């Protein structure tokens, strides 16, 4: 874990360096598309003091000066499968975005949608014995969290302190300077497959870019598509992506749970392709033009030409009614939503005070999805679109870009993670001066 800690600290340093230069790229590597935004940090609030997030949720700090999307290649379930292909796709999108921005970017903040994210709730305690809680105590209490054995093939992606409690008072956002005896913390830790992470890392490195941050795409799409009170009172964001569906649960503006279902829009497409015996590209086109999940009588009469170029006239002139298409799509969408429901139930989502569910991602554009989702997930379902950020082109404001926009917000205002706090004293090297200072403080 120490390695991750140092890696993440190094990435934070890189992010600071990128902020100094004022230009940073956002790379959302998804299963069906790869999006790249180039952000310039020169907004009026850039140099304001860091007291809270600031107005407009902090997104007035930056503006988007370049945006590009390309079809993703070599990615399945949000994980990189064919490195060379993905690398080429990343090169394409980064070059296009750079060209639009007319500036070279060196630092990139990426998101990972696959990698089988797994959430852990940790708690740690520290005896401060009536003293004032210092920054060092906070890092110490987080270091005291008993970390479960999450497996040697996994890496920590997020480790955020969600709650602090001092003696009997819980729900403290910032216990520094308060006086008490026993400081406890709850931490949310998200781990992902280290192989998926390394592949992404390597791909980005091969494109001559420096990784300045990593985030789970479920988390960042929740940040961009949930409104503030939903984040405060409790809500789940369902990011219906191409290869995987991300789930993130927010409470008190902190992510408390994240998961992903390894099914998404591509599975719907492949169902259509298999069911109608048509190529995947045609199936994708039919899905986006005529897809839906609720059939009406009208849909029986609306015939869709599937087309084809086999040379067989009968085969090429086949038609399919929209009701049939919906009949193929609906079971798969239902399956995805059922799976999401199961994950939310397992996470104890029903215990939250508010059970708002927000659907976002490219898959949420299926007509009638909100009706279907409210039958499966509960009554409080809405379709979410990402926050508006300055300079984002019209083509990139749809729900498919919620994780890209969320990554921009993450780049501007990352939440405090474990590695953002001071290094706990016992992690210092043995001859460190700080360690000596701490010894003197403790003994005199």
């Amino acid at each position, binding site marked *: 874990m120490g390695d991750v800690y140092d890696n993440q600290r190094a990435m934070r340093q890189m992010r600071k360096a990128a902020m100094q230069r004022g230009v940073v790229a956002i790379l959302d590597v998804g299963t069906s598309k790869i999006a790249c935004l180039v952000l310039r940090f020169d907004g009026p609030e850039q140099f304001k003091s860091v007291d809270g997030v600031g107005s407009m949720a902090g997104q007035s700090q930056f503006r988007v000066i370049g945006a590009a999307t*390309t079809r993703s290649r070599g990615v399945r379930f949000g994980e990189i499968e064919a490195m060379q292909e993905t690398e*080429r*796709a990343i*090169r*394409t999108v*980064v*070059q296009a975005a*750079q*060209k639009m921005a*007319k*500036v*070279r970017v060196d630092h990139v903040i990426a998101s990972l949608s696959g990698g089988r994210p797994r959430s852990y709730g940790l708690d740690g305690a520290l005896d401060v014995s009536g003293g004032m809680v210092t920054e060092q105590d906070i890092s110490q209490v987080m270091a005291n969290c008993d970390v479960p054995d999450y497996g040697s093939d996994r890496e920590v992606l997020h480790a955020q302190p969600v709650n602090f409690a001092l003696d009997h008072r819980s729900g403290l956002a910032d216990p520094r300077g308060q006086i008490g005896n026993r400081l406890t913390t709850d931490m949310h830790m998200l781990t992902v497959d280290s192989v998926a992470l390394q592949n992404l890392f390597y791909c980005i490195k091969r*494109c*001559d870019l420096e990784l300045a941050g990593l985030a789970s795409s479920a988390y960042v799409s929740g940040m961009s598509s949930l409104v503030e009170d939903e984040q405060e009172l409790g809500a789940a964001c369902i990011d219906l992506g191409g290869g995987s569906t991300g789930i993130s649960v927010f409470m008190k503006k902190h992510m408390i749970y994240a998961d992903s279902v390894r099914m998404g829009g591509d599975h719907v497409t492949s169902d259509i392709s298999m069911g109608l015996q048509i190529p995947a590209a045609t199936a994708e086109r039919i899905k986006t033009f005529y897809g839906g999940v609720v059939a009406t009588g009208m849909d029986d009469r609306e015939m869709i030409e599937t087309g084809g170029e086999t040379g067989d006239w009968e085969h090429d002139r086949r038609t399919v009614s929209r009701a049939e298409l919906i009949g193929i799509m609906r079971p798969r969408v239902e399956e995805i939503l059922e799976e999401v429901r199961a994950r939310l139930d397992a996470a104890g989502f029903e215990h939250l005070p508010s059970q708002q569910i927000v659907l976002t991602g490219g898959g949420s554009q299926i007509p009638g999805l909100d009706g279907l989702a409210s039958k499966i997930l509960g009554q409080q379902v809405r379709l979410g679109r990402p926050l508006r950020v300055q300079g984002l082109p019209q083509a990139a404001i749809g729900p498919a870009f919620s994780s890209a926009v969320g990554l921009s917000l993450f780049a501007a205002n990352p939440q405090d993670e474990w590695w953002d706090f001071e290094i706990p004293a016992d992690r210092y090297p043995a001859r460190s001066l700080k360690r000596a200072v701490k010894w003197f403080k403790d003994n005199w």
Partner: protein
Amino acid sequence: MRSLIRRPAAAVPHDPAPSRLGYRYQRLLLTPGFRATMRIGVPILLIASIAGSHFSQPENRAALMAQIESTKQRFQQRPQFMVKAMTITGADQETMTRVIDLLPKEYPVSSFDLDLEETRRTIEALDPVQSASVRVGAAGTLEVRLTPRVPAALWRDGADLRLIDGGGIVSGTVTSRSDRLDLPLIAGDGAEQHIAEALALYAGAGPLQERVRGLVRMGERRWDIVLDRDQRIMLPATGAVAALDRVIALNDAQDMLERDVVVVDMRNAQRPTLRMNEEAVAALRRVNENITTNGAGN
């Protein structure tokens, strides 16, 4: 069966991805420093190298210099800048001929070729000229206005008689004393350095002025006033004017200088001394003896 119609080979699906090299090239071109270099540095370098290679040939350099020179000439030779004549005012004929020698001989001449300041300095270096103003006036005339030096005294320097002004600066020579009878004559070693003192003494001579033949600097420290009839007033090194005033007062009271006095020695203020000529001394002695004998006889 082989198809009879030739069709292009199945098109390879276009790969929009840039090659690694192309990608790096694009990134290089988007680097701000590199862009600036390409936009400014390279053109400047190109221009500099072309110009350098062109002018490394001596004939090209010479041609450029000739071009510049002819353009300059054409501009300077415009009629607006030409000086067609000259006028000299405020000097006598002799000085004027000397000044004309210092001015350009041929007209018209471009005013760019005239160094008025230098001309003025050379003209002012002439002895008879105290100051000069040189300017190019209206209608292309070189106007030289001279202020001549006013001689205050004649200075006998060896065999020469020189005109000298109040500052001790020689402004010319005269052949004989009678040319400038209005000026006092000054002689002696180091006399030219104390002209002001000499002139003050001459001015203070008052009623004696017609009789003054000249002033002689003695031993480079004091003045003698030489009067006609070979009379000489020896003045002290300091307080010479006061001493002269005393002599004049004595003269007024007793007509001292009308008598047979050769030298009035005022060098010691406590003890003014007269020297009479020998005949007068002898006469005086005779008279005294007569008086003594007569008195003894009484």
